[in-house]
């Protein structure tokens, strides 16, 4: 079948302003949108630039906007979005070239929530693993799935509006550690989240939950963080 792709184009070395280019490619309903972008790049316009790596939704490179909603290009099939597809970069981060945006602000926010396991207590005497029950492990399972693709953060109206909001992805990371029974830095993280740029900026628009390609219940996780800040309960 013929698929029409309308793609956002911006070359910072030539263009003053972005424009859209339309390409027609041969595709199957089961093709990934990424496959079509590769087709365009391979045969119609080599200058088209986008990020990609694993091509099956686990590396998080190819977050883009397809028909107005955030998706991973490799996890979206033609049959899900139809044969007229508009492809644009995600919103809220500066476009560098075509579909490539500047990810630095996103990772800067990630780094603000102490995105690493902290436990300075002595190891168990036998040198073996710190114990954790399956229930304690289950408590933060959902947020361990995050691949930092930025689909959630760049779909969040608060993030679009505010330059300093940590964004859903950073909060998801905070959740992953705060609710880990082995971690000891919940206090520091909650202090960061309690700032004006933290959970206060979440107005439960739910865009993040809808956008997450890993189906993480992002808004729920943020809600749990807000409750933890008020009650102090971490289990």
């Amino acid at each position, binding site marked *: 079948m013929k698929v029409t792709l309308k793609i956002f184009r911006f070359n910072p070395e030539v263009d003053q302003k972005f424009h859209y280019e339309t390409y027609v490619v041969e595709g199957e309903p089961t093709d990934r949108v990424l496959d079509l972008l590769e087709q365009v790049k391979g045969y119609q316009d080599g200058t088209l630039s986008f990020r990609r790596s694993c091509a099956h939704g686990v590396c998080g490179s190819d977050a883009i906007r397809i028909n107005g909603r955030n998706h991973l290009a490799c996890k979206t099939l033609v049959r899900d979005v139809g044969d007229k597809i508009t492809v644009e970069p995600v919103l809220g981060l500066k476009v560098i070239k075509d579909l490539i945006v500047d990810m630095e602000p996103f990772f800067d926010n990630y780094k603000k929530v102490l995105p690493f396991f902290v436990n300075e207590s002595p190891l168990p005497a036998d040198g073996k693993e710190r114990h954790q029950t399956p229930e304690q492990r289950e408590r933060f399972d959902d947020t361990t799935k995050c691949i930092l693709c930025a689909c959630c953060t760049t779909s969040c109206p*608060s993030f679009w509006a*505010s330059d300093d909001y940590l964004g859903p992805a950073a909060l998801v990371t905070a959740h992953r550690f705060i609710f880990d*029974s082995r971690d000891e830095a919940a*206090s520091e993280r*909650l*202090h960061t989240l*309690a700032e004006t740029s933290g959970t206060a900026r979440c107005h439960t628009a739910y865009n993040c939950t809808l956008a997450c390609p890993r189906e993480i219940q992002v808004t729920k996780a943020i809600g749990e963080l807000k409750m933890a*800040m008020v009650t*102090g309960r*971490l289990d």
Partner: protein
Amino acid sequence: MKRTLPLSRRGLSFETLMWFFTRLSALAMYALILFGLFGALWMGARYQMNFADVMRWAFMPNVTHVQGTNVPDIAPWAGLFWKLVAMALLLVATAHGVHGLVVIADDYIVSARGRQIVRLLSILMMASMSLIGLYIIWIS
């Protein structure tokens, strides 16, 4: 094993406090509105007032809202108790609403100084609105 952070370790920031206050004040408003509504019905609104008046009473339980209607006896409405209820709802609602405005303004205004100015203006607005409301409740 329970994991609970004591207040001393999680701190109490303005944001957290206000987030919590916004939730509580919303619940309090529901409670006060229902309370006012039942009060109005109990005091004769079933027979003498129309729907619009009942709603006004419920959301702004103020005796001046009854004066213009065909309710013959407004004395119970003007008592101290109902003035206190009206005042509670007024203060909770202005604080709740103005904080909502601050939250939205914070989305768009990022500089610390800008936020300070907006907060100052908001507090002034909240204070003046509350004063006007109190004046109306207590002079009538």
